[in-house]
């Protein structure tokens, strides 16, 4: 009986040991199967960033382990280094100029033989310049191309818009020259007045520039998102009196300027943030298909936009039809 009992004990031990081994094998197999490549996003906090991340994670979530790390103005390069060491990502997504600058600092700490992980940058000002010295890098510009905005406005208002006026500071020169080409293909000529990057007399300069544009028979005005030219004092004393006097359709890049209360812009064209995230995810797939390499630095324009119309102004000054408004995302009354 004792022998039998020992035998049984020994049998149970073998069974337990085998079960343990089997469990270990299953755990290892499951972890191998579920070990997916990581796509790591560094981003600031805020609704727009969350929306972009939503677009990214929804699109990539089924194929990758999508992670995010918050960056703020106090963050230093150690945040990047720690996250890179913790997640070992296949690719990083960098949202905004602060994050891109930090990532550059991180790349500078790597040795000459270190593997350069590809990156996709977005939501920054002048992304092309911002990532110029990043290796293995792609991006999406944040500025909505003028042609995108004007073609949309033209379709909604049903006006020809052959000449579009722009007052810009000098730093926008390259952006304008790129846009000039695209607009030309759509039969749109950009007529611009360039102001110095620094000046104490923007009020006088802006007023004169706008009058010059009117004398060149512009049919629409495109206002860049430039804090210096959209200073509240200039809005009150230059832009608003100009719009009131000439009734030219005005395209802006921020919602607040098309509210009927301010009544500066006719039409605002903003990035569609969730779609921007989806577009970034598409680039991630492209880079993956190319063996995680970006052959040549690539910066795409944003494809999807969010359109807001100042309904009061559009109806009163430009008699826009309800049918045309079906293509607008938001109507401000």
């Amino acid at each position, binding site marked *: 009986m004792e022998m039998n009992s020992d035998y049984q004990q020994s049998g149970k031990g073998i069974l337990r040991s085998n079960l343990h081994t089997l469990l270990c094998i299953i755990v290892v197999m499951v972890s191998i199967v579920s070990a997916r490549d990581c796509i790591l996003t560094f981003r600031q906090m805020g609704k727009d960033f969350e929306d972009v991340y939503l677009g990214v994670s*929804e699109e990539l979530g089924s194929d990758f382990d999508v992670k995010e790390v918050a960056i703020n103005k106090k963050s230093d390069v150690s945040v990047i280094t720690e996250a890179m060491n913790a997640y070992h990502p296949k690719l990083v997504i960098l949202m905004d100029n602060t994050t891109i600058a930090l990532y550059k600092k991180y790349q500078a700490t790597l040795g000459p033989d270190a593997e350069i992980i590809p990156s996709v940058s977005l939501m920054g000002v002048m992304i092309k310049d911002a990532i110029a010295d990043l290796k293995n890098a792609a991006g999406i510009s944040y500025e909505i191309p003028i042609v995108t905005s004007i*073609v949309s406005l033209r*379709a909604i208002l049903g006006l020809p818009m052959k000449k579009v006026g722009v007052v810009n500071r000098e730093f926008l020169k390259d952006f304008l020259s790129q846009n000039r080409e695209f607009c030309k293909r759509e039969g749109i000529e950009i007529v611009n007045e360039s102001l110095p990057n620094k000046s104490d007399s923007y009020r006088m300069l802006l007023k004169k520039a706008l009058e010059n544009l009117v004398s060149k028979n512009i049919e629409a005005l495109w206002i860049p998102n430039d804090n210096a030219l959209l200073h509240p004092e200039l809005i009150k004393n230059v832009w608003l009196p100009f719009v009131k006097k000439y009734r030219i359709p005005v395209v802006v890049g921020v919602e607040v300027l098309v509210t009927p209360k301010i009544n500066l812009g006719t039409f605002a064209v903003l990035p569609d943030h969730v779609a921007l995230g989806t577009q970034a995810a*598409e680039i991630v797939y492209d880079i993956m298909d190319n063996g995680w390499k970006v052959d040549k630095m690539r910066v795409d*324009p944003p*494809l999807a936009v969010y359109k807001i119309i100042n309904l009061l102004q559009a109806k009163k000054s430009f008699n826009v039809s309800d049918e045309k408004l079906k293509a607008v995302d938001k109507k401000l009354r």
Partner: protein
Amino acid sequence: MRHETVLICVLVLLLSTIPAAQEKLYVFYPTTTRPQVIQDRMSSSFDGVTVTVFGRYNDFTAKVGMDPPDAIITKPALISQIGGYTIVLNAQRRGKTEEAYVLVSINTPLDPASVNGETVLGAIDLLGRNGMKTFSEQFFSVEPKIKRVTKVEDLLPLLSFNMAAGIVIEDVFVNYFKTTSQLQFAITSLTGSKGGILALAVRDGSKADKTVAALKKNDKEICGMFEVDSWK
């Protein structure tokens, strides 16, 4: 006995005053009209139906998965991808229920036979990444690189900025591009499509009588929003 009779009468009376349960309908079919506009218009005509119109494939499929509605209106290919729904009505365009696709390029026509693995083509994301790969197989012998966008209008920048050699769209949307842009579009018909234009499908084991009745009225404005002529 009398008390019981009174109680039953009161219950019957109460039940008759409770409104019949609302049917739930989800719609996903990107057109040139904003989803909110379609939703508002359909909601005003579809009595007893709560209508939700989605603009993105991911939003639609996620919501159908989390909170399945009684009925869905979308592409038949997506209905079969989702599963668990049976088509009860099909949309007709020019007397046909089959979709017709074209390849739109700039200046010169793009020969479908010349499309290869490196050719970038734009398309509206109707079926997700994998579904769109299958979708492209019906037109091209070699799978092109499909660049997916959310809205019909998002396809225009792909052509304007030379990001794609062409775009694949239903022929009914060609007019939007011709009236919106001054680019010189070249249109090439694509053969091989086997899919339906749009369909109403009811969840297996569920009923959507109000939705079916409302759609069968063939309201001109609602049909127009889907670029179809009628539902049968």
